[in-house]
Structures are given as C-alpha cells and as structure tokens.
C-alpha cells in the first residue's frame, strides 16, 4: 500500500474518532486490507468496504458518509464544462427529477454549486455555500412542474398516482443533500479537509444539542430512544444482578465465625432489598426546552419496566400530572409534547416558565408522591424569568426523596447568566449538564439507583 493511501486512511480514521466513533488500530488495519482487496476504481465499493470494517452500528453511518465524502471525494476541483445559467440548470433539474435519474442529479449538484454557490471576490471564489445555491436554484418550487410533466406523459395513472408528490419531494430532498455535500467538498479543498471534517460535519443523532436541534433532527433523535433504552436496560439489569450478590457483611461473618473458633469459614453476604426504584420526573415543557423534556420522558417510558413506579409531572408555571399520557404503548412520540400541552393544565396567567411557582405547587399538591425510596429527576434549564426561584420548595423535595438530580440542557458556562437560577438550585441538589442524548444516556445509567 502506498504511503499516500495509508496517510489518507489514517487521517480519515482520525476524523471519525474525533466525532466519537470508536475505531481501534485493528479495524484500521482491516480497512487497509479491504482497500487493497477492493481497489480504488469503484468509489461505491470502497465506501461500503470501509463502512463494513470501521463501523460497528447503524447510527454512525450518516456521519461516516459525510466524512467519507470529504476524504474520498467524487472528483477534484471544479467541473470541466462551463456552468450553465440558472434557468438552464432548473430545466435540466426538472427533467432529472422527473426521470429520477440519480447520476444526472449528482452531476447537476456539482454544476449548481460551481455556478451558483460561489461567494467572495478572489478568482474562483472564497467559498461555496449550499444555502446560497439552493436559494438561487429553488428546487422545491419545481414540484408542480415535475408532477405535471410526469402526468402529461401519461406515465402514471391509477392508485400510485397519489404517491407521486411525496416521491418527488423525497427526490428533491435527496438533491438538496447532494448540493450540501458538494459545497462541503469544495470548501474542504480550499480550507483543508481536516478542519472541515472537524467543524462542518453534523454529529450523530446522540450528540445533537437538545436546545438547538431542528425538527428533522428531533425526529431522528426520537428514533435513538429505543436503542438507547435497550442499552440502558441491559446495563441496569447486569448491575442489578451483580448487586444482588451483595458485598460481605463483616459483622455477621465474624459473628458466625465464633462457632469455628474465630476462623471465618463461611462469609456472609449482605442482603439487598430487591426493591425497584421509584421515579418522579418534573419536566419543564415550555417551548425553549421542550425537545429535551420530551426526549427524556420518552426514554423513561421506554425504560418503564425497570422501575417500580414512574410518575411524571409537567409544568410551565402550573404543574400537572402527565403519567397517564406516558402509559406504555399509548404515546406516539411525535405528538407527545403537543398532547401534554393540550391535555394538562400547565399555564396560569402567563405562558412563560416559572420554576418557583411550579415547585411550590408540586410540594403542595403532590408532595406525597415523593418518599424515601423515590429518585426525583428535575428536567429544565432553571430559567425562572426573573421570578422567585422558591428554593425552599426544592429543599423540601430533596429532604423527602432519596435522591434528587437536576438535568440541565444548557452548557455549564451559561448557568447563572441572565435569569438562570441554576446556581441557587445547584447548591441544594446535584445539577448535571445534559445537552445531548449521549450525555443523557451516560447520566441516566450512572444516576439511577440499582
């Protein structure tokens, strides 16, 4: 294997590692063998070969593909031919969308970025923007034209016709992704691949920041709930099994050794009560943090059989019990947040969150839900909108409960800025930064009692 290829491969692996994919040296060697066996002639084969040797799970694939496109690009530099103008591009794009021809679409994406995406004044361009390309090209406005085109050719009658619009929409979506990929490649050529790989690659779903996740990323995030819950459940079951074996009870071992003249023949193990933890969730579901609390509630719902009892309460500035809405199997994840907001009484005179009032009301109305076996999770950013944080209420909860943990989706440096009452609360209960699904998984796994 030439040194150049080896370097490329190692840099590629390093970029994957930087995004949290665990690749060992063994796998890198396998990948090298795979490239040797497959050759570089067919890029598609190379991609699949590297994926098979380097990846271990499905959710890393999207990240892998993006990084792969940077390190093993489809082509180098600008396309050969003069770029056509916008109308010409649109015409050809419409034709390609109607035909569903992926090869042509890929070529058009390259041309479009070259012709429409460049900005800056230096020769060629300073950079390429997929946003600008798509703004000028507006592929989404071609929908009606493509549809009429297909229909006019009579290629589509009958039942499947009603699927047509959705199919065209999916093709347009795919084209937009191609444009983004091409723009990334061009920028990477100019500014160095490693840097772009570090900065411009969307993270895997479990590392998307809850507070900034867009709608499509939230949907993807929801799909990570099941695997994450399964992983946690396996881990918790294993921990419970280990814990049930118990540790040595020194006092009873020595007591038992009296009959053998002080020689501890039979170690006595400390018994654990096989109680499943009870869990109470207090979730801020106001707009700013709703993605986070929805996701956490889904996770807890998926973990349902790990707990003796789960009660969930949602609040904005009034608090209400939403356990019923979380019943296993009943919730469709998409509508969960909306249903909670529709069916529970969460707001009083105004619509912004008020932790002080909500915590106070919780203590008053549902104080009995918290007992010595309960672990309480409070989910929210602790932004009180300048009202009284009511630390007394939280103190009372923490005195009644076995553990209280506060999960805060804001980055730690922002705690205490503006109207955040995080430091006040953090003095009373353990507060953890919890910005993405990965962190949440780690935290839940660590914090939940056996």
């Amino acid at each position, binding site marked *: 294997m030439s040194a150049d290829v080896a370097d490329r491969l190692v840099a590629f692996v390093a970029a994957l590692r930087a995004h949290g994919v665990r690749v060992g040296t063994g796998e890198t060697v*396998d990948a090298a063998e795979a490239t040797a066996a*497959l050759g570089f002639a067919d890029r598609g084969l190379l991609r699949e070969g590297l994926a098979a040797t380097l990846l271990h799970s499905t959710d890393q694939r999207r990240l892998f593909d993006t990084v792969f496109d940077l390190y093993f690009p489809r082509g180098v530099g600008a396309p050969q031919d003069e770029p056509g103008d916008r109308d010409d591009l649109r015409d050809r794009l419409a034709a390609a969308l109607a035909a569903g021809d992926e090869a042509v679409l890929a070529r058009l994406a390259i041309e479009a970025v070259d012709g429409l995406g460049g900005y800056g004044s230096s020769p060629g361009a300073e950079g390429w923007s997929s946003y600008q390309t798509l703004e000028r090209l507006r592929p989404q406005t071609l929908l009606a034209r493509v549809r009429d085109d297909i229909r006019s050719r009579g290629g589509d009658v*009958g*039942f499947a016709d009603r699927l047509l619009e959705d199919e065209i929409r999916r093709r347009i979506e795919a084209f937009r992704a191609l444009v983004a990929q091409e723009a990334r490649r061009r920028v990477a050529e100019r500014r160095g691949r490693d840097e772009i790989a570090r900065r411009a690659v969307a993270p895997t779903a479990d590392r998307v920041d809850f507070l900034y996740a867009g709608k499509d990323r939230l949907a993807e995030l929801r799909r990570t709930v099941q695997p994450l819950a*399964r992983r946690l459940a396996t881990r918790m079951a294993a921990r419970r099994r280990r814990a049930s074996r118990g540790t040595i009870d020194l006092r009873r071992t020595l007591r038992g050794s009296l009959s053998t003249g002080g020689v501890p023949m039979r170690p006595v193990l400390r018994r654990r009560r096989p109680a499943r933890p009870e869990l109470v969730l207090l979730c801020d579901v106001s707009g700013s943090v709703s993605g986070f609390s929805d996701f956490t509630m889904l996770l807890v719902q998926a973990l349902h059989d790990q707990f003796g009892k789960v009660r969930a309460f949602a609040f904005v500035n009034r608090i209400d019990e939403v356990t019923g809405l979380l019943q296993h199997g009943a919730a469709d994840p998409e509508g969960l947040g909306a249903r909670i907001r529709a069916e529970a009484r969460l707001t009083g005179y105004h619509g912004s969150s008020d932790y002080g009032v909500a915590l106070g009301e919780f203590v008053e109305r549902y104080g009995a839900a918290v007992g010595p076996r309960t672990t309480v999770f409070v989910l929210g950013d602790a932004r009180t909108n300048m009202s009284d944080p009511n630390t007394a209420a939280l103190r009372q909860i923490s005195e009644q409960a076995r553990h209280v943990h506060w999960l805060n989706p804001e980055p730690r440096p922002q705690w205490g800025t503006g109207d955040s009452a995080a430091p006040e609360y953090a003095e009373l209960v353990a507060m953890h930064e919890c910005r993405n699904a990965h962190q949440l998984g780690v935290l839940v796994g660590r914090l939940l009692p056996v």
Partner: protein
Amino acid sequence: MFTSVDDVSARLAESGYLASPAVATTVFLADRLGKPLLVEGPAGVGKTELAKAVAEVAGARLIRLQCYEGVDESRALYEWNHAKQLLRISAGRDETWDETRTDIFSEEFLLPRPLLTAIRGDEPTVLLIDETDKADVEMEGLLLEVLSDFQVTVPELGTITATRRPFVVLTSNAGRELSEALRRRCLFLHIGFPEEELERQIVRLRVPGIDAALAESVVRVVGALRAMDLRKAPSVAETIDWARTLLALGATTLDERVVRDSLGVILKHQDDVLKAGAKLDLDAV
C-alpha cells in the same frame, strides 16, 4: 471463494438472492479477510436468506445455531452423551476404573453441537448464528473464543482448532445491544430496506407471473408506507407477501378497494393501518 465483488453479486443472483452493492462488497470482504460477518437490520430484509444463499453458491454445508434466551454451552458447543456413557460403564463391569474413565471421555461419546461441528468439519462450511441478540451475554463470551481463533477447548480432549475456517454469519435484530468486543471481531453490515429498483427486481424474481406495472406500483406504495414512520414499517418479506396476495386476488392494477382490503398483509398494527389509510386517502379503512 469469490474472485471479485461482481462475482459475488452474479453468483448470489443465480441462487435467487439479489444483493445490493453493500451486501456484495461485505460478503466479498468477509470471505477475503476471513472475518465473521455481523448482519443487522429490521426483520424480513433477508439476513438469514443471505447466509443460506452464500452456502448455496459456495457449495458449502450450512450449519445453523438458532439463539434463544438460555441457549448455553451444551446447546451451542458440545455435550457428553451421558446415556451412552452409562451404558458403556455398565457393559464393562470387570475392567479397572482407569480404563473406563479414559474411555468414556473419547470422541465416541461426544455430541458435537453447531459451533463444534462447524469448526471440526473439513469441508467448506457456512456457520449461521441466527438472532445472536436473543442469546444471553454469557453466550457472547463463548462466541468470542470461537470467532477470534476458530478454536474450541474440550477439557478432556484438548483444544480443537479449525483446519478450514468456516464462513460465519451472525444475524441480529438489535433486540439487545451486542458487546463491543463481539462487534470488533466482525465485519459489520446493515441491511436496510432496498432501493426501489432492487426491490422491484426482487419482487419480480420471487413472484413470477406478476405484471411489471403492478410490481412497480406495489414497490412504490410500500416505499411510501416506509416513509410514514409507522410502528412496524413493511419489510421486503411483506412486499413479497403482498405481491403474492394481489396475484392471488387476481388484481392487475392497484386501486383503492384492493389496497384497502389487503393492507393487513403488509401492516401488522391496527394503528398503522389507520394511519396509512388516512395518509393514502383511503376512505373508511
């Protein structure tokens, strides 16, 4: 076993398995690098079929270990034939203990189970470890030894090493998270739902006699259903079932009534049926 990726595709196709480029590439590499292949993906996309097809084209014997909760060493590896051992002991009453003891732990009384069979065989073998995620964690430890060195230790007989490495396929529905150690020993392949074009070919291959236009409509509707985020998205097996059903119903094109009546073939939950019905504008499902 294979000379190139194209060779894999072509030969699998001959045996009736249409492989996507990803599948063909990974099979080729698994063969070339001599590593086990871990296949994940939703139910019904052809994970088990792949192992069967590889066995067929390679002219290899297929040995299958079906995993389930509680599958253990004696089910997976080997056990001693106790009944036969007892018979042997009671048959030779007048010999010394030493003679008997060495005797009853010999090959003759060993019952090889799938893993041992696959390792001992000297003909080409495909070992299919099906639904690995159903087995307990302890089972994975056992697999680690077998899959990394292709050897098994029987205390009374010593270590048995494979003379000819079997082609190993592990399948999993991701019902449980497999350990990192096991994953590292394998090449990883995710089989998802196939591309439209490939699925059309699969339908036409598996349901001979289906009209090309009908096959296309079927695949398009299934594609639309998969985009709907249902509880259980229809998989290739369901597509084929549906195509067969339509053929049996004598339908030549899809229309509202036919789809409505047969939606239950592809969707397995009532709320999915309702959701799909609403999105496809079927009145009153």
